[in-house]
């Protein structure tokens, strides 16, 4: 296929679940899982007479997301009802925002295949999630645990131009949302979901082609694959003289294809109108300013600073900023230690390994920056050897004990004084006159053997570098 003749155009709609403990319009819990319909109240069941009450924490998180993405936060926005009939929607309508959303504009910045890209957002609005249907043994069962969970829908402008860009956009968006504590970024559990609007056009064309909306994209891999096969389908259709019908299509990951879900004719008429049970959503200047003030340095800015101010390689900066708490801890340790690279090495190496192995969240690490600094100083001063430092670090991680105590208790201190080192060397050389001769005859590789022998005599605690230096001197004879 002559792909160069076609330009893919993608716009994304992301539904991100807000990290509240209760639902958007009721006090029911938002926990994932649980027995079907355990997390419901009369409000999320849509009983007669129930009225919604907006969860202000959800709004605070939505405002935070808007501020983090550079949106204009509307001081007055409006709730609307979106109507359709389906058993997962208890009231027969979803409470959402339509004509007057909470946030307008903003953008997501990411590194695309061709360098930095800033893709603009159309809007962010707040809405409640629907429940789900479970089809079992010929019956359909309704589980409303998820019904009423607060979401933000983040709508991009159709500015993405490839599946790769779409995926990079989503990763960067997810990074920001997770970083600022608005969303947990979990695609599998559906707390970060994406629909993609895909069309193709001739490069330089002034009008977009007819778009199709793709649903059921619950991993980055599927998103990339779905966009590629859908764009391919459009190109093939158009090149064969056909037309693309505007429709909603479902991605089938097993078959690697998209198939029609509903056509434009079958599209719902949602009959939006302003929700009469809720007053306008008013956000005070103070709330927006507070959200701005509380906004942390975002991952991209932090990465850039790590490279520019801390002199770290780009790869390190990337790894160290994958998680905010990890990165924050890193910064505190750097501040204590005074240089970044050794701390970075410990963080990317031993600390990451131990966190993974023990499944410990970084926030529950038992030691503080001062203890890490003490260990790094001990290692640098040669008080402990490299392996000794690793051993001490593992103990530090497991117990949080004082570093000096660990070194003492485990006997990790190295012998650095020349006196005992020279005595052990003298013994070792005296025991192997043949090898001494061989060394002096040119087999200098034998120095390793002697280091081993000396180390054995010192119970493994000699400073290997100093032993080496002294050995070389002694062997010169």
């Amino acid at each position, binding site marked *: 296929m002559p792909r160069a003749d076609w330009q893919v155009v993608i716009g994304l709609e992301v539904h991100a679940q807000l990290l509240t403990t209760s639902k958007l319009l009721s006090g029911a819990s938002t926990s994932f899982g649980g027995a079907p319909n355990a997390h419901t109240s009369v409000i999320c*069941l849509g009983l*007669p*007479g129930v*009225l919604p009450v907006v969860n202000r924490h959800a709004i605070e998180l939505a405002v935070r997301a808007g501020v983090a993405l550079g949106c204009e936060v509307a001081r007055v926005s409006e709730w609307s009802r979106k*109507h359709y009939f389906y058993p997962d929607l208890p009231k027969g309508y979803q409470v959402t925002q339509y004509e007057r959303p909470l946030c307008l504009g903003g953008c997501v910045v990411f590194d695309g295949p061709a360098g930095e890209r800033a893709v603009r957002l159309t809007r962010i609005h707040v809405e409640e999630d629907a429940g789900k249907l479970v089809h079992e043994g010929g019956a359909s069962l309704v589980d409303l645990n998820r019904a009423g969970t607060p979401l933000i829908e983040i709508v991009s402008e159709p500015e993405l131009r490839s599946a790769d860009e779409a995926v990079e956009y989503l990763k960067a968006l997810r990074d920001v949302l997770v970083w600022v504590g608005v969303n947990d970024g979990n695609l599998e559990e559906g707390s970060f979901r994406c629909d993609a609007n895909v069309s193709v056009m001739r490069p330089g064309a002034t009008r977009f082609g007819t778009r199709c909306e793709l649903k059921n994209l619950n991993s980055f891999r599927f998103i990339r694959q779905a966009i590629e096969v859908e764009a391919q389908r459009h190109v093939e259709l158009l090149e064969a003289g056909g037309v693309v019908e505007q429709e909603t299509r479902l991605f089938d990951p097993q078959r690697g294809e998209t198939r029609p879900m509903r056509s434009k004719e079958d599209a719902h008429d949602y*009959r939006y*109108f302003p929700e009469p*049970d*809720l007053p306008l959503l008013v956000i005070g200047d103070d709330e927006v300013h507070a959200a701005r003030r509380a906004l942390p340095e975002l991952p991209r800015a932090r990465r850039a600073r790590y490279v520019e101010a801390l002199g770290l390689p780009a790869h390190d900066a990337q790894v160290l900023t994958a998680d905010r708490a990890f990165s924050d801890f890193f910064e505190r340790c750097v501040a204590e230690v005074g240089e970044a690279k050794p701390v970075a090495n410990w963080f990317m190496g031993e600390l990451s390994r131990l966190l993974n192995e023990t499944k410990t969240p970084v926030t529950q690490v038992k030691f503080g920056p001062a203890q890490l600094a003490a260990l790094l100083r001990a290692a640098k001063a040669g008080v402990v050897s490299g392996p000794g430092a690793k051993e001490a670090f593992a103990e530090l991680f497991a117990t949080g004990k004082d570093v000096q105590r660990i070194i003492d208790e485990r006997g990790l201190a190295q012998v650095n004084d020349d006196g005992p080192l020279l005595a052990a060397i003298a013994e070792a050389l005296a025991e192997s006159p043949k090898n001494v001769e061989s060394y002096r005859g040119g087999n200098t590789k034998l120095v390793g053997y002697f280091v081993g022998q000396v180390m054995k005599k010192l119970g493994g605690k000699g400073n290997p570098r100093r032993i080496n230096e002294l050995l070389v001197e002694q062997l010169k004879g």
Partner: protein
Amino acid sequence: MKTLLQAAAALASGATTSQALTAHCLTRARADETSAFLTLDEAGALAAARASDERRARGGALGPLDGVPLSLKDNILTEGVVTTAGSRMLEGFVPPYDATVTARLKAAGAVLLGKTNLDEFGMGSSTEGSAFQKTRNPLDPSRTPGGSSGGSAASVAARLCFGSLGTDTGGSVRQPAAFTGLVGLKPTWGRVSRAGVVAYASSLDQVGPLAHTVEDAAALLSAIEGYDAADATSAQHPRTDLSSLKAGVEGLRVGLPKEYLVEGMDGEVAAGVRAAAETLKARGAVVREVSLPHTRFALAAYYVIAPCEASSNLGRYDGVRYGHRAQGARTLSALYEQSRAEGFGPEVKRRIMLGTFALSAGYADAYYRKAQQVRGLIRRDFDEAFAQVDVLLSATSPVLPWRLGEKLSDPLAMYLMDVLTLSCNLAGLPGLSLPCGRAVGGLPVGAQLLGRPFDEATVLRAAYALEQALGLDFAPVGGA
């Protein structure tokens, strides 16, 4: 003993007990020929009466409502007691929670006798739209008690209880009050919580009392009004100040909206309102004509907005979680269609269809949005009128209570009956109906007083003065 405050006084003096009063009311209710009640909760009422008597014996009586038998319109939720909204859709539905107004009446010690009949979901003006029974007017059993709170009105007018709560979306408290010789108050939208009230049209619905006297209505309002965290649209507004209820109308500026003298108005109704105006004038009020120029668009706007909201509010009745479910449906859409076809009556279906149409893509601008614009103009009319006067006086209904069945075949004629009451809902104002005359044949004529938002106090003051001056009394057929 007729009024709520008389009952309260008798309880306070020890002349009677709540259990005696309740037993008396239940006996009358069981023998009721008006079919006011859909459900009598005899056990619950007697238990509440006993608790009230015990409280009083301990010296812990709660206030004027403590121990007084009342009724509730059957679209107000009562925990553990069937609430149907007059619909097959909710036949046998037992709510798991109390409406806020129910809870507040209980907290005030009231004895809740049972649930009263209504037009299905509150949609109607004669109570003939109930899926279960027709209610008769206690003053003339051949006639309608009005609607949609006709059961509540009949229960009070037939003296089966001492007061009732109805709901008013376009006149459903005031018009039945007018038809049965009672006082009916629709508070300002937001004054009383709607939580636990089966929604018809959310932006218009409001709970209000029906009672024999203005003071009774005021006592009921005091018990139910005030902010409720469960209703985001309930207002954080000071309570109604009743200290000047009996202060008279000297200097009060009363407006007569000239547009409310509608074509086809019954002559006796017009005469009753004129007499009311003269009476107020004689008591020192300043009466003048005012204009509400957009009144002629109100009915059309109302019958777009109310059905739009109704079509949305009634979407939840789908047979999936509760309520009527059709048997034998083989597909999801058949389940919806059959359940709703069987569960809803003709007027409800008509309004759902009207509303669905008026909100659909391509029509919403011409209907829903245009109606909202009209609503804004109507509000402005009232703002301008209330810059000149303190209350507005008009008829409540343009006609006297009609005979049962008379208007059933003509929905449009029925809609026209709401023409004088529904602007008040569109503007969210407080409105009250009280008897202002007796027509030939003994039927009551109702006058309506409208006030500024949250100015129930002035409306009640004017109503009290009029009530005292007119001294009207209506007795049910067959006697008290």
